[in-house]
């Protein structure tokens, strides 16, 4: 019985880490894959989502709608930022990093001034189940299932809708897409909005499990960056899935055996080894094997 519960515990930890990585990286990788901009204000997008969720929840709106509202508000916010700032930095990768970092500093410190060091946390819903002596949160199991469905959902948007077709065309060859009548500016803005919205939803979902403050998002970003770097953007979906599942395996094993810090270090070391062998990420490697 004891071994069963620790086995379930391990699986649970693994699924939890996978969903953590997928949710925190999905918005980032879409924006990066689409426009080559790594959004260093990604953590602040998550923070905007979390704040909106919390405010909405405490003004009496049901939880699910609060989370969706968090995603929508962040999405609109993202589109505004793209129009006003980000679009000036297309094609200048390093400058866009620095500019979004400035934005990140501005937003997080602005939130600190406006709302103080912490806002009201939202209680974790859904209760728990137990195996043997260990008890597990249902919500985290839900997050895992949700993250899988989220990937499928985003994949369908990119493959089955008109926007998705135009977005993929723009990603492939912006000039040609423009020549064929695609409004690439609009596509960029919408994709940025989609990425920001996904970050906002992730922020809202994690807000139910953590304390929310101005620097809330920054605890998720380093691992999101590693996931994106390891996954690569040859194919954002296979990259994200392969990278999240393999990194989570490494991290879970090391956290189980040692402690959380060793888990983080192991992730970083695996990332550095993997980029030494696959500088363009797992997805590029997978694509090459396919062809």
């Amino acid at each position, binding site marked *: 019985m004891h071994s069963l519960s620790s086995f379930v515990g391990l699986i649970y930890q693994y699924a939890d880490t996978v969903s953590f990585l997928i949710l925190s990286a999905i918005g980032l990788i879409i924006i990066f894959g689409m426009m080559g901009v790594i959004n260093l204000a990604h953590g602040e997008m998550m923070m905007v989502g979390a704040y909106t969720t919390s405010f909405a929840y405490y003004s009496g709106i049901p939880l699910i709608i609060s989370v969706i509202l968090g995603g929508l508000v962040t999405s609109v916010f993202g589109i505004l930022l793209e129009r006003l700032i980000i679009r000036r930095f297309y094609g200048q990768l*390093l400058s866009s990093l620095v500019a979004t970092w400035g934005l990140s500093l501005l937003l997080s*410190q602005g939130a600190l001034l406006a709302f103080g060091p912490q806002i009201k946390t939202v209680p974790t819903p859904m209760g728990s189940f137990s195996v043997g002596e260990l008890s597990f949160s249902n919500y985290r199991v839900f997050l895992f299932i949700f993250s899988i469905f989220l990937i499928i959902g985003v994949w369908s948007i990119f493959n089955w809708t008109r926007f998705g077709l135009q977005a993929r065309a723009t990603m492939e060859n912006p000039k040609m897409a423009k020549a064929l009548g695609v409004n690439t500016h609009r596509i960029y803005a919408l994709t940025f909005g989609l990425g920001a919205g996904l970050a906002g939803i992730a922020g809202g979902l994690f807000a139910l499990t953590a304390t929310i403050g101005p620097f809330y998002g920054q605890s998720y970003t380093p691992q999101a960056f590693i996931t994106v770097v390891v996954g690569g953007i040859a194919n954002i979906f296979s990259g994200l899935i392969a990278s999240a599942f393999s990194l989570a395996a490494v991290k879970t094993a090391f956290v189980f055996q040692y402690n959380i*810090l060793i888990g983080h270090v192991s992730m970083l070391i695996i990332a550095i080894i993997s980029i030494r062998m696959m500088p363009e990420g797992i997805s590029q490697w997978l694509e090459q094997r396919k062809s």
Partner: protein
Amino acid sequence: MSQIKILRSLSNINGKNDLGNNYIFWFFFFLLLLLGLFSPLILSRYQLLNLSNHITNIFLGLSLCLIWGYCGILSLGQSLFLGLGGYTYGIVGINLIETHGNTHVALLMGIIVPIFTAFVLGYLMFFARLKGVYVAILMLVVSLLFETFLNQTAGPGWFVGEAHLGGNNGLGRFSGVIREPPSLIFSFRENTIEFVGSSIQFYYLCFGLALITFLALRLLVNSSFGYKMIAIREDIDRTEALGHNIKLIQLIIFCVGAGLASMSGILYVSWGNFITPDTFGVYNNILPVIWVAVAGRKSLTAALLGSFFISWISQWLNEQGDYALVALGAILLSSMLFAPEGVIVKITQKFSVKLSKQ
């Protein structure tokens, strides 16, 4: 013959890979030099202490300017090397100060350890031909990991020899132990000289080092190696096609940058006799990026002025209220939007256009 060669290479100091190769520049240069030399006579002890602190930042700014502005390698975790240098210097210093009576070994180790780290990281990144954005992000992630690691070293088990790592209180008096990192002490035969942070000696040490470093870097960027660096910044593939070993050049300059940043760290620890894990954190990593990006990353002069004056301004803002970091974020963002090459570079360009019109 050899004298002519030396003279010719020394004239590189006035080369065109940095702002300022006319008499106006050198006039202001000597004006600042005189101001710097005589300021200890005018300023109070406290003002001098602050001035020394701002000067220690210059090395970090110059290191980022060198690797990013001249070689196109952006590192968002450049403060990693500052922290590593500072911590190594502090730990070795605490352990050896009693037996040696000086900090020679600590100083040496404080430079070697960051350079070695840069060598390992740089080898892994540049020889894998990693994209520039990835290099930038990975450096930040490594730096943040050091912050996380050091923050959990508060327990009694975390001693390196006699130095207690001290968790988020860091190395030094705030962690409650008596042993704090020593100030720089040099000894030669019978003579010993100590550079206490608030002293005039320390000020002149920083000032002299900054001056030498600045001039040496001007020589470097105008040398043939400097031209190769700039070629890499402008077009890495073309430079390689011309037969240059780009990976090696990137690695070398990355290590030089780490050495420069470590000097900032060592001087900082020597100045305040403490260092905390915050050094590896987000804000200490964004600061050099702000100095260099706002002033002008493609010029050593601009980076030097930027590091000195913006760190001065940010200290002043800190004294005014809580909005210092918001202001810095706004300054960075607006300068990226309206003066992408840097404010000082933009101003001098306008000025020189006016001059040439007359």
